[in-house]
């Protein structure tokens, strides 16, 4: 996240992280989730699902804050987010560092 000024409590406040689940064959490619995700996490993919629509992909999943808006707006019950628990979050950050 880009911050213009570092908040004083930045060390104690943890930004929640989410993990996205997509039920691809239920999506009808309306683009609502892509347009309204406040963190711009999603993109419509190039692949086709069973019905010939382009389901979204979490192109920037690391930015997801698990706000739940995609689940709320999706008219097809095809996407939802789950909060990543802190333990796992730490692990994944460590693996990310290791990868870098």
């Amino acid at each position: 996240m880009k911050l213009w000024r570092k908040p004083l409590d930045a060390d104690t406040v943890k930004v929640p992280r989410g993990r996205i689940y997509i039920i691809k064959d239920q999506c009808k490619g309306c683009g609502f989730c892509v347009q309204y995700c406040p963190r711009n996490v999603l993109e419509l993919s190039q692949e086709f699902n069973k019905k010939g629509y382009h389901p979204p992909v979490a192109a920037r999943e690391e930015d997801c804050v698990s706000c739940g808006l995609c689940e709320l707006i999706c008219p097809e019950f095809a996407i939802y987010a789950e909060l990543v628990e802190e333990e796992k979050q730490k692990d994944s950050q460590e693996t990310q560092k290791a990868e870098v």
Partner: protein
Amino acid sequence: MNRSASSTTDVVDKQSHPMSDLLRMDRMPHIWCSGCGLGTTLTCFIMAVRESGIDEKKIAVVSGIGCSGRVAGYINLDSFHTTHGRAIPFATGLALANPELRVVVYSGDGDLVAIGGNHFIHAARRNMDILVICVNNFNYGMTGGQAGPTTPVSARATTAPYGNYEYPFNIPYLSIASGATYVARWTALHMRRLKNSIAEALPKKGFRVIEIICPCPTAFARRNRLGTGLDLMKYYHDNSIIKHGADPREADIGMTGKIIVGKFLDIERPTFRDFLVENVWPKIGRK
């Protein structure tokens, strides 16, 4: 859960969806078109049911005919899909016979205020204990886009190729004038406010109406060249004004101009059943 390790996004089985217990997942994907807002309104309803804390076994959903009428078949609560326009009479029976039930009528504008128009105004007049969720898509979508009771002046429809020149109903005004006790309007894009409004109205008593303005890209938008469902959502974003307690006479919806949303009315008055129990039962020796 069936996680695929290779992708950043998990692709999962439909039964894993957090709302799958309140939906009949065996009927998914549903029949609603791509970009239709009906599914979004149903999500808001399900979340509101959860939030209200009301026992799910004590909620009954009744629908009429039309695209919105399919809700009764998709929701995994006690539900009934009635004939055209007759959702309110069926719900009236339910609410009178079993006051423990929270009865919800989930239907469309055509079903509720045209074909079932008389039922609507008279159930409001009698103050029946029903929550009406009226999804307004401005036309008869399922049958191919005929003009209906809410089609705005000058809009095109299959039965109005030169434009519709009948004045439409303004649903909040109609509801309040007929005697409803709780009246709100939201669009399908106001998900959280809509959900809060349903959760607020669900435990209340009396005839409550929540109108939801909903994109119908296949029938209404196509004939009027308004674009996709997403274009309509953007239109709602740019043109809705939240105004609680607004004068319902100002809440007309045209082909251009603003859409006034918010809570118009929230009052209490005795319901028809309250009157019966208080005034008629003692006279007939019923307790």
